[in-house]
C-alpha cells in the first residue's frame, strides 16, 4: 500500500518555475504550516496530496534590499533571518518576535505566513497597513498584486498554479516618519495563535494627521481594514476628539464580525479589537519608531 510521493528540489528559481508550470504542486517553504496542515499521526510522513516542491533554499528568494524607499523582502527569508536584518522595520520585527518560538522562527518564512493566509496570521495586519505588495514569478513573467487582493479568504490566495511568490514589497517604508504599533492578543506569551491582533500606523506633520491606517487580525476571514474609515481622520489634529474616536469605533463595530471557536468568543474578539482601536486613537504622541 505504499504511496508514490514525488518531490522536487531544484537549484534555481527558473527550474522551479518550469516544474510549477507543468504540474499542480504543493509548495513547501519552511514547512511549519504545511507539515501541520497535512499532518498524519506519529511515526509517519504527512499526507500531502500533490507533488511537493521545496523552495526555502533558493537564493533568489532570500534577498533583502532597498529600492529607493521601498523595502524588498525575499519570500523565503525566515523569521530568524529577518530579526537579524538591519533593514527590517522595528514594528515588523516586534510582530515577528510574537510568532511561536525560536525553533519555529528558524524555519518559518514571511512568504509562507502570507500564502498560508490564516485569519490569525501574525505578520498580516502589519503587512496590510504597510500596503504590502507581492511579486509573483511564473514562466510567463512577473506580476505584482496588493496583499489585500492576494489574500481572498482563509487559506485562499490569488496565486495561479504556475506562480510563485518571490518577494514582498513594502512601499515607502524606509526612512518613514510614521509611528507604528502592533498588538497580538493570545492565550499565552509564546506558541500562541492570535485571538485578536491589531496594527496601527499614524503619521503627523505640522500637527495634522497626514496618514492613518489600521488593520485587525483574527476577527474575520481575512484582515479587516477600511480605507474609507481611515480617510475620515485625515487632516485632523491630535489629540482626536471623543466624537471622532467614537465615530470610528462605532463604524468598526459594524464591520468587525468575529466568530466563536475553541480558542475564544466572538464577544471577546470584538470587544478587545475595539478596545485596542480606541486606545490607539486616544494616544497623544506620534513619535516615529523605526
Amino acid at each position: 500500500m505504499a504511496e508514490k510521493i514525488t518531490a522536487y528540489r531544484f537549484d534555481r528559481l527558473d527550474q522551479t518555475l518550469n516544474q510549477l508550470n507543468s504540474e499542480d504542486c504543493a509548495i513547501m517553504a519552511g514547512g511549519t504550516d504545511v507539515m501541520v496542515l497535512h499532518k498524519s499521526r506519529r511515526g509517519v510522513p504527512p499526507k500531502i496530496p500533490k507533488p511537493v516542491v521545496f523552495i526555502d533554499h533558493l537564493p533568489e528568494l532570500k534577498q533583502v534590499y532597498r529600492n529607493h524607499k521601498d523595502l524588498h523582502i525575499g519570500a523565503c527569508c525566515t523569521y530568524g533571518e529577518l530579526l537579524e536584518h538591519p533593514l527590517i522595520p522595528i514594528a515588523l520585527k516586534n510582530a515577528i518576535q510574537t510568532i511561536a518560538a525560536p525553533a519555529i522562527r528558524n524555519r518559518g518564512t514571511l512568504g509562507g505566513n502570507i500564502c498560508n493566509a490564516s485569519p490569525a496570521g501574525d505578520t498580516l495586519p502589519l503587512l496590510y497597513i504597510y500596503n504590502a505588495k507581492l511579486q509573483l514569478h511564473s514562466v510567463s513573467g512577473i506580476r505584482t498584486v496588493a496583499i489585500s487582493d492576494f489574500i481572498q479568504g482563509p487559506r485562499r490566495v490569488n496565486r495561479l498554479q504556475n506562480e510563485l511568490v518571490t518577494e514582498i514589497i513594502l512601499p515607502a517604508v524606509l526612512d518613514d516618519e510614521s509611528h507604528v504599533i502592533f498588538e497580538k492578543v493570545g492565550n499565552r506569551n509564546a506558541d500562541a495563535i492570535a485571538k485578536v491582533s491589531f496594527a496601527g500606523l499614524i503619521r503627523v506633520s505640522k500637527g495634522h494627521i497626514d496618514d492613518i491606517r489600521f488593520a485587525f487580525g483574527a476577527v474575520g476571514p481575512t484582515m479587516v481594514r477600511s480605507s474609507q474609515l481611515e480617510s475620515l481622520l485625515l487632516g485632523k489634529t491630535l489629540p482626536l476628539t471623543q466624537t471622532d474616536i467614537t465615530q470610528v469605533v462605532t463604524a468598526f463595530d459594524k464591520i468587525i464580525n468575529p466568530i466563536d471557536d475553541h480558542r475564544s468568543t466572538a464577544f471577546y474578539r470584538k470587544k478587545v479589537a475595539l478596545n485596542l482601536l480606541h486606545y490607539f486613537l486616544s494616544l497623544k504622541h506620534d513619535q516615529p519608531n523605526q
Partner: protein
Amino acid sequence: MIKFKLNGKIVETDAPATARLLDILRDELDLIGTKEGCGEGECGACSVFVNNLLQNSCLIPIGSIAGADVQTIEGILETDQFKILDECYSIAGGVQCGYCIPGMIMASAALLTKNPHPSEEDIRDGISGNLCRCTGYNMIVEAIHLAARKGDGIWQRK
C-alpha cells in the same frame, strides 16, 4: 536517496522526501535522544540543530535538508558546551521527568552560542518553545544562567 550530514557523518536514506526528520532519526538511525511530544512543533522535545540553527525535527521533511548539517543531542555529548550544561542542570535541579530535557539542552546551547551573556528575559525567550510540565521552568532558567557564568569563554567558540 537523500543525503545529509548527521553528527559529523554523512548518512543517506531512501525514505520519501516528505518523511519527518524525527522519524528518520528515531526509526532508521536508532537515535532515541530526539523525542516526540506533540508532532506539531509546539513542545520542543524533538529539537535538533540544522546548519547550527535550533529547529523542530517533527516539522522537517527530509527533502528540505538534503546536504544540510544536522546535529542531535547525541552529536553534542562530547562537547565542552554539553558538559557545562550537564553540570549546571544538575546543580540547579532542573531535571525532573527528563522528557523535555534533551530538547531543553539543545535550546540552551543554541541560546548561549548566539548570546553568551543572556538576560533573564533572553533565557526565557530562548526556551519559550520547549514545554516543561514538571519544573515550572525556574530551575531550568537558573541552570542556564549558571552555565552562562561557569562557561564564560566556552560559548563564544564554535
